[in-house]
């Protein structure tokens, strides 16, 4: 029984026409059908957050959504963060503050943090910690991830003020 559905996924502003079974999760479709392997799969049951992407303006677990449910909604993945060779401020901050070691959880943390800072650039430390507690990292002990996101928060805020001024 093959009951594939034709759908279009808009990822980082680009349309991808794919044909997938309804049971295919969004993360599998992103990786296998759209060949965007920056988004990682960890636990596949919503615990680790490695597969976090931004769908319709919200950071979500892409292993807990079926691809068919993301049709018509803008999807953002880690591939869309840098512009050309210029890394996103958060990516630079993760490098500067050693916010990664093996890098497996990094795309998920980046999308979670980007979404959080874009929605609330003035987010307080306590709330930020609560948001970041959503994802797992087995290398860093979290402190440098928190440091990196806090530094990016200041960086992105200064830039906004510069633009506004």
């Amino acid at each position: 029984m093959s009951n594939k559905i034709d759908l279009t996924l808009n990822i980082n502003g680009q349309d991808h026409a794919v044909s997938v079974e309804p049971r295919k999760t969004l993360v599998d479709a992103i990786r296998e059908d759209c060949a965007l392997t920056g988004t990682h799969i960890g636990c596949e049951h919503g615990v680790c957050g490695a597969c976090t992407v931004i769908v319709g303006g919200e950071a979500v677990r892409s292993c807990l959504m079926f691809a068919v449910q993301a049709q018509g909604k803008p999807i953002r993945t880690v591939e869309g963060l840098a512009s050309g060779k210029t890394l996103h401020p958060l990516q630079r901050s993760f490098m500067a503050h050693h916010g990664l070691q093996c890098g497996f959880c990094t795309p998920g943390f980046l999308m979670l943090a980007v979404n959080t800072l874009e929605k609330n650039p003035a987010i307080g430390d306590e709330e930020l910690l609560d948001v970041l507690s959503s994802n797992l990292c087995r290398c860093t002990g979290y402190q440098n991830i928190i440091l990196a996101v806090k530094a990016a928060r200041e960086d992105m805020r200064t830039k906004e003020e510069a633009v506004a001024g």
Partner: protein
Amino acid sequence: MKPAQFQYHAPTTIAETLDLLARYAQDDGRVLAGGQSLVPTMAFRLARPKHLVDINGVSELNRVRVENGRLCIGAGVRHSAFEKPVEDGPLGGLLASVVRHIAHRPIRVRGTFCGSIAHADPASEWCAVAAALDAEMVAESKISGTRVIPAREFFEGIMTTALHEGELLREVRLPILPKGTHAGFAEYSRRAGDYAIAMAVATYRLKNGMMSDMHIAVGGAEAAPRRLPEAERTLIGRPPNFGIFQAAGHAARQAVDPIDDPSIGADYRRGIVRAMVIRALESAAS
């Protein structure tokens, strides 16, 4: 770790949803709302529904409204909708304090209030709130029409409810708490966002300095959340203070029949129940 095959249905109206459920529920058809519990269960292949009726496109289910002194929460309303108070009174405040305990932010923007109620995990925060406030569950199907099920009859056991096959939990109604109602919530879990070992919800009003309209419910500790009249009775007609809160905690500890699992023994869970009842009361009083 990949869900088994199923047929996908995406209705856009309640009528269409009920049609699909009438047709497919007996062939192992299920409602897909936020999917934050159902999809992992499918990934483990503990659930292998043949049909999924996805209600995310049914916009008439996305509403929260106040009607006849009740907060009516539609089947499509996400947990995150409660992060800012949905209502100016004590109920809005209580729901906003509870929602912070539900999983993590990316889960809260997908998972739904009614989905949690229908799933009826013993450790669900919304189920404990529903039990505490005597919520009404509005179930609807093509065959039996609309039924209103009170919370005390709705939760039957671990992930078991009074919902019939083919019924959609269309909305949950919570009574608006009168101005001046004291409301508090407390839960204990080992990790941020993890399932709670036990939680408690407490609400009361003060009449001449004495507690009345006492509601205390415990969740996570037993197979299903429920009010504990033994603990409520301890407090009625007394002034709120730490000593009497401790007596209520003790009564709750005695009254529960806790889940006993290999990692958390029944006795330990009883102790947590006691502490959570005290903390919920303290939070209500503050």
